[in-house]
């Protein structure tokens, strides 16, 4: 079995989804989470608050520098993620297809290193 990160990419500056669309997405993601759990492939998942809530720390010249805001000033930011444990990429893609429909955003699939 391999663990995969299903990363939800949200694009900033897109029109805000309506209240109704938000509710629908919450419901669909909730249903998918239950499905992942009952299939025994769930490891962890969560949605993130906007990048404006982010703080970056980095080691620089022997000191730790702390800065406000996200690391990369790009339009596309990580909005949330799932970690699942499945047999192979095809199985991960099957779940990712459901995930992108549920959260209405593009989903990137990346395998974790084997430990």
């Amino acid at each position, binding site marked *: 079995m*391999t663990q995969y990160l299903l990363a939800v990419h949200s694009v900033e500056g897109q029109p805000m989804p309506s209240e109704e669309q938000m509710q629908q997405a919450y419901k669909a993601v909730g249903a998918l989470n239950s499905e992942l759990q009952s299939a025994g492939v769930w490891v962890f998942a969560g949605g993130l608050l906007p990048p404006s809530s982010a703080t970056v720390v980095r080691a620089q010249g022997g000191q730790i520098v702390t800065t406000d805001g996200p690391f990369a000033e790009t339009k596309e930011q990580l909005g949330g993620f799932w970690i699942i444990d499945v*047999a*192979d*990429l*095809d199985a991960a*893609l099957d779940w990712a297809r459901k995930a992108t429909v549920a959260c209405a955003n593009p989903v990137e*699939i*990346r*395998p974790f290193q*084997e430990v």
Partner: protein
Amino acid sequence: MPDPGTPAVERAFRESSGRAVATLVRLFGDIDLAEEAVQEAFATAAERWPETGVPPNPGGWITTTARNKALDRLRRESSRYGREAQAVLLREQTSPAREEEPVPDDRLRLIFTCCHPALGAEAQLALTLRLVAGLQTPEIARAFLTPEPTIAQRLVRAKRKIRDAKIPYRMPRDAELTSRLPFVLAVVYLVFNEGYTASAGDELVRTELCAEAIRLARLLAELMPDEPEVRGLLALLLLTEARRPARTGADGSLVRLADQDRTRWDRAMIAEGQDLVRGCLRRNQPGPYQLQAAINAVHADAPAAAATDWRQILALYDQLSALVPTPVVALNRCVAVAEVHGPGVALGLLGQLDLDGYHLFHATRADLLRRLGRAAEAAAAYDAAIRCAANGAERAFLIRQRDALGPRPRPAG
């Protein structure tokens, strides 16, 4: 790699190489290990066979030898390979070695792995030619006029992704097969088209790529006899390839379908292609490749260009554009419209297409304008086509067509 020697030996090498790699990938789950071991087995064959003679079943010999070489490698440097390969080693230590029987599905599984949609189109192409067709990296580079390091890097990255992301070696399940098969067919068709009209360079056709594509299509048809689109693709390739001898003049220049010497068409290939098309018609599950094959079968039926049944071709294009509503299909349909309803109607339809960068769009437009007697506009359209065409033979053909319009009218003002 043995000395290529005669084409027969080379072909045998390619065929058994594809089979052996596919079997070893199934056994060890590691493409690099499979490839290295098969190369070693061929090196051993090149050393021994001249003395011992070719064994009765060369393919089986290669596969069994390669498997043993792979096991040796695993014993020597087991940490280099994945867990799956190491598990094989463990199994091997408890059960004795035996003659390795190839499973026909091995190559099919490998084709679907190579053409996985998680890999880029160029990577799919290079992998299929390398692993399934058994072409060496320099051959692929030469065929696509791409620097060898570029192809090598593409292969390395694709193989790494297969391993890291765990792209599985298996046939897609039934429900998935319908969505995955088009990727496989597209790769084979791309190999053929690249061979049939090389996208760059001066030579019109790169025969070896056409032959390779037909071989892959035959393999698919043999392995998936119940897929009508697979048969459709094979028929399309055969019917197109059959015209190749008539497609170039003695000086290597391009000869249009209408002007071709039809006695030079390959009748055996046409018969095989038409047979496949008839089988598809009986099944009545039309798809894009079957329809294109049927269109080519109608062309092949006509003893002379003037005898072409354009109404039937147009009806087939109507069906095709309903299934594949792309501008390129619409452009080809326009050619049939011109024959059935006249160049004026076709020109009107052409005006709605957005294909400004495609040389055949401008070439078709130029031809319609010429037939309508609008020489100055035709010349300008040929100029646009010449600018867009990357193949030397095609460009030369377009220049001849333009110059045949007569002296250029002086620009106004």
